[in-house]
């Protein structure tokens, strides 16, 4: 990877031209996709009208309502949640040093889901209460996983395996909760469990925006250290990084990102897993590339939601189903390419 640097006085910023160009292209693609998503749906809103409504000119009565209270929150939630998942996935994948280590595999998603299901089935709160419970669930689970994996420091494999154990336990609990409820509540909870962008409101957008505003700066500030951590604890320590403290800080950031994403759209499968893979391949980087991962995450989630909308226009299929199925396909593709490389 060729890297260049910009120097201004005593500051210097190192960047890779390829990562920069790729991120710019991904950003452009995301803008186009967002625009497309705003125009299509139960009925089409022409591009010109979308632009004029965005600039403040009110559209016709019904169109205005659909645009600002149905479509906009949904599209914005998709984009923001995708970014959160993508960045969180990249961090966790780098921390766990494993291409399959993602927040959902490590049980944060399951923990968030347990919190939310309890809220839906037992306490019966509204969407904000559900989001809050999910956040609490994610943090409680992450704390538990980290505490279990901690023995004079956290080693990646212990983190991964402790996460998988707890995730399996939570999955059983979640399913038990589903069978002890009546069918309507259970269906509502199960849709939430799969992750859905239906009926998103501005509340969901707010949760995701706040999380992105608070946590993404930390994530980007720590990204250089994350890259150094990949060299191993000894090497990174000699380069001035305190491995344990940095890892804990990154872990907290990743859990916060995941928790907020799950709180606003449910534990959508595989976005956090697939986005960093695709981003790293596009950027051609060995290590984490947070910006590209976030953009790819947004494109994936928005694309999956659009696909669900277009393929099943009548049924309200949750986006999590599409990302789950696509994730499975993607795994098979990764497998295929690696297989070819290994046999070569």
């Amino acid at each position, binding site marked *: 990877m060729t890297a260049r640097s910009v120097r201004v006085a005593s500051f210097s910023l190192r960047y890779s031209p390829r990562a920069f160009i790729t991120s710019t292209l991904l950003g452009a693609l995301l803008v186009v996709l967002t625009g497309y998503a705003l125009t299509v749906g139960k009925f089409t809103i022409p591009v010109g009208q979308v632009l004029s409504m965005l600039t403040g000119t009110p559209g016709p009565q019904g169109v205005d309502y659909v645009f600002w209270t149905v479509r906009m929150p949904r599209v914005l939630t998709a984009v923001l949640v995708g970014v959160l998942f993508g960045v969180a996935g990249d961090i966790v994948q780098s921390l766990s040093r494993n291409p*399959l280590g993602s927040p959902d595999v490590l049980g944060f998603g399951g923990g968030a889901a347990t919190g939310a299901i309890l809220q839906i089935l037992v306490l019966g709160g509204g969407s904000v209460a559900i989001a809050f419970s999910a956040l609490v669930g994610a943090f409680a689970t992450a704390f538990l996983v980290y505490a279990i994996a901690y*023995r004079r420091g956290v080693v990646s*494999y212990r983190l991964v*395996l402790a996460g998988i*154990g707890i995730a399996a336990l939570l999955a059983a609990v979640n399913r038990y909760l589903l069978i002890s409820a009546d069918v309507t509540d259970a269906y509502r909870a199960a849709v939430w469990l799969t992750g859905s962008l239906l009926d998103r409101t501005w509340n969901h957008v707010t949760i995701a925006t706040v999380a992105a505003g608070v946590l993404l700066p930390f994530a980007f500030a720590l990204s250089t250290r994350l890259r150094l951590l990949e060299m191993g604890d000894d090497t990174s320590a000699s380069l001035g990084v305190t491995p344990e403290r940095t890892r804990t800080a990154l872990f907290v950031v990743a859990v916060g990102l995941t928790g907020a994403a799950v709180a606003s759209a449910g534990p959508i499968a595989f976005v956090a897993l697939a986005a960093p893979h695709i981003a790293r391949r596009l950027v051609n980087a060995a290590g984490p590339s947070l910006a590209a991962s976030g953009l790819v995450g947004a494109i994936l989630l928005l694309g999956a939601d659009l696909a669900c909308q277009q393929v099943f226009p009548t049924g309200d299929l949750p986006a999590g189903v599409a990302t789950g199925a696509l994730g499975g396909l993607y*795994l098979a593709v990764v*497998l295929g390419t690696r297989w070819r490389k290994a046999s070569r």
Partner: protein
Amino acid sequence: MVFLLLVAVGVLGIVGVGSLLVGAQPVNVGEALRVVFADDRSDAAVIVHDLRMPRTVLGICVGVALGLAGALMQSLTRNSIADPGILGVNAGAAFGVLVAVVGFGVGQFSGYVWFAFLGAALSTALVYLIGTVGPPTTAPVRLVLAGTAVGAALVACAEGIVFLDPKAFDEYRFWIVGDVAKPDLSVTGQFLPFLVAGVVLALLLGPPLNALALGDDLGSALGVRVARTRILTGIAVLLLSGAATAAAGPIAFVGLAAPHLARTVTGTDQRWLLPFSAVVGAIVVLLADILGRVVLPSGELRVSVMTAIVGAPFFVFLVRRKRAVA
């Protein structure tokens, strides 16, 4: 060893009788033993024959199958944290059953068990391919991660299918939580031939698996056909865990825990480890089932929920205990 195995079977017998006694309506020992052999349709006889006998027998069969499957998988993958639940085999079987029931309208065990085998075979192959490509140093973790990821993809697909059909969803949410409490023994009867075939195959594989534990080269020098042994082991795992999942729904952690408990008695000799794992698996399932009946003040916890609640901490304990992954 033979004596110890008899002791284990004795313990299984005691737990089995315990499974007839414990529940919402306790039955005392003398009465239970009397009505087992003389069904006089008294209240106790109805409880024992119509409720507790079927679930005890199915529990034993499923436990034997899962314990053996777990032991075979741990030996095959040389991975002490392998389990048909964790490595996605049960998820594949469950998905197969779902496709059979919802997609093709197959309602009978004898019909959908084949779909369970197919699903289990495909997911196992996928997990194995994803989990074994790459440098061998991180292999155990990779295999477990691959199993989890494939399992998650299958669950997502399954949910995609059931969300389109609320009636299917209502059946699915119960079926996906594995349970041995079935109304009668018809499913168990259909499950039995597959179980017997799997057990016989597994027990025959003891000696060659012992030789393979020394490594492929040394194993083949000792006269074992490496590829054939691997494939036969895989088939035995599919038969056992696929059929068990089709019969009772997915149950995790039994296949993980049983071989570890058995190993404390037998050491690493597969010829003894396999039968012990089978018996211990049955004991574990029965104990979990009994516990599930009494742990809540009213109602029951299903056996798969109990095995997860007890088994997940066990898994975590195994992970923490080891200094490095073998």
